[in-house]
């Protein structure tokens, strides 16, 4: 595919690796914020190809992983008690709530459907006027326009049996939270290319200035990631801390203003709980009052007790790069991909699952 397979060229990848080796002079810890980049690192075996001096730290960049336990419980409640058609992206289904996952709820008879797009959910609502249809609208800034758009579509087409269970998380506050943690030792960041496609790069300049870290907005293919790493290291080696854009073929400085408009039409910024990390100020989106009728929480007036997270799970520390998955006492023992205790064991981009699956450290 054009603009995709070209960025997987093995020969050029080798050159980049060589250049990285030649550039790096001392140990650096780089966090890739985004799970998509983690995925690329592990799928292509890049981590082991990097010089030992470079440590990649898998950040909290998997919206599925950081969706609060309580919200999953609410989604399950909607599907089972309210008998709604609960639509979701596929990777949300295996994430454990306090009692069960959506996949288990489905196994027990709930109508849970995997969709490619939230816009499909509006169609399902139209086709099933006698049922309530709820879309589990998780995602970073990238997914927010599509989720917002589904609400706008439903409103325009007067689809009253549609609503979203919104759980958006925002990247810049998360970088802030990581850097504010005293234990964190991150030297530089690969910022999430697709988040910046929507929001642009402007939010990152104050961060790189404040925390004196290079931030390179990076794509997802091997060459993108390698170039991004090289760009971070070049800055580090030269003691710079700037925002650079590796992914300029997609990302504009100002982002996508039309997308930002639809986000602002439907959502407003609020404090947000991150699973394993806790509440981060101004790090999520709430549905505006204007669209309260499309906000599943308000529409169904659901209240589910906050269940405590598993105290043995150190996912917060892992997502901040303070600990490695194998430093968790439960890793590979009680906590495995087929029975995850915490969210980072669930999706293959979750830091714990990535280690479990791909590192070969664990004898299954």
């Amino acid at each position, binding site marked *: 595919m*054009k*603009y995709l397979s070209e960025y997987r060229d093995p020969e*050029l990848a080798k*050159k980049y690796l060589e*250049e990285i080796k030649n550039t790096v002079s001392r140990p650096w810890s780089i966090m890739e914020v985004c799970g998509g980049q983690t995925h690329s690192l592990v799928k292509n075996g890049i981590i082991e190809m990097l010089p030992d001096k470079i440590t990649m730290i898998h950040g909290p960049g998997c919206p599925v992983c950081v969706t609060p336990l309580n919200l999953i419980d609410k989604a399950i409640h909607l599907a089972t008690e309210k008998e709604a058609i609960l639509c979701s992206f596929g990777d949300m289904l295996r994430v454990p709530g306090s009692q069960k996952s959506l996949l288990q709820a489905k196994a027990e008879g709930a109508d849970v459907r995997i969709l490619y797009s939230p816009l499909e959910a509006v169609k399902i609502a139209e086709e099933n006027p006698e049922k309530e249809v709820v879309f589990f609208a998780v995602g970073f800034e*990238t*997914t927010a326009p599509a989720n917002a*758009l589904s609400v706008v579509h439903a409103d325009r087409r007067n689809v009253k049996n549609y609503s979203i269970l919104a759980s958006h998380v925002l990247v810049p506050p998360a970088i802030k939270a990581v850097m504010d943690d005293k234990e964190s030792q991150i030297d530089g960041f690969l910022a999430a290319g697709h988040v910046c496609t929507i929001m642009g790069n402007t939010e990152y300049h104050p961060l790189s200035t404040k925390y004196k870290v290079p931030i390179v907005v990076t794509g997802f293919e091997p060459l993108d990631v390698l170039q991004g790493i090289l760009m971070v290291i070049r800055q580090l080696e030269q003691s710079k801390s700037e925002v650079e854009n590796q992914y300029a*073929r997609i990302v504009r400085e100002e982002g996508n203003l039309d997308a930002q408009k639809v986000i602002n039409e439907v959502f407003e910024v609020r404090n947000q709980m991150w699973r394993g990390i806790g509440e981060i100020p101004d790090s999520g989106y709430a549905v505006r009052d204007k669209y309260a009728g499309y906000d599943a929480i308000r529409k169904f007036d659901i209240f589910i007790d906050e269940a405590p997270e598993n105290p043995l799970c150190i996912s917060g520390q892992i997502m901040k790069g303070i600990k490695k998955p194998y430093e968790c006492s439960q890793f590979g023992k009680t906590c495995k991909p087929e029975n995850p205790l915490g969210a980072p064991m669930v999706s293959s981009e979750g830091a714990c699952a990535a280690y479990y699956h791909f590192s070969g450290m664990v004898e299954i």
Partner: protein
Amino acid sequence: MCLAIPGKIKSIETKYGGMVRMAKVSFGGIVKEASLEMLPDAEVDDYVLVHVGVAISKVNEEEAQKTFKYLEEIGELGELGDVDEYLPKPE
């Protein structure tokens, strides 16, 4: 996060009483619908990045070449030869 891939717009139609522009986008031969509401000026034959059924960015062809030229630019590409061979080609 945020799986999104580039595809080429094959055709555009207006749906829902003229309110929504929807494109048929080809991803290496497979075709899926995507909303163009975030890209009001996208046209047929444009390459766009699509995420969960919504096109969110037009690919900038010029910028697309930079990854292949970067090593050369930073002066570290003595032996790479003709950069063009790595550049995205027309499909």
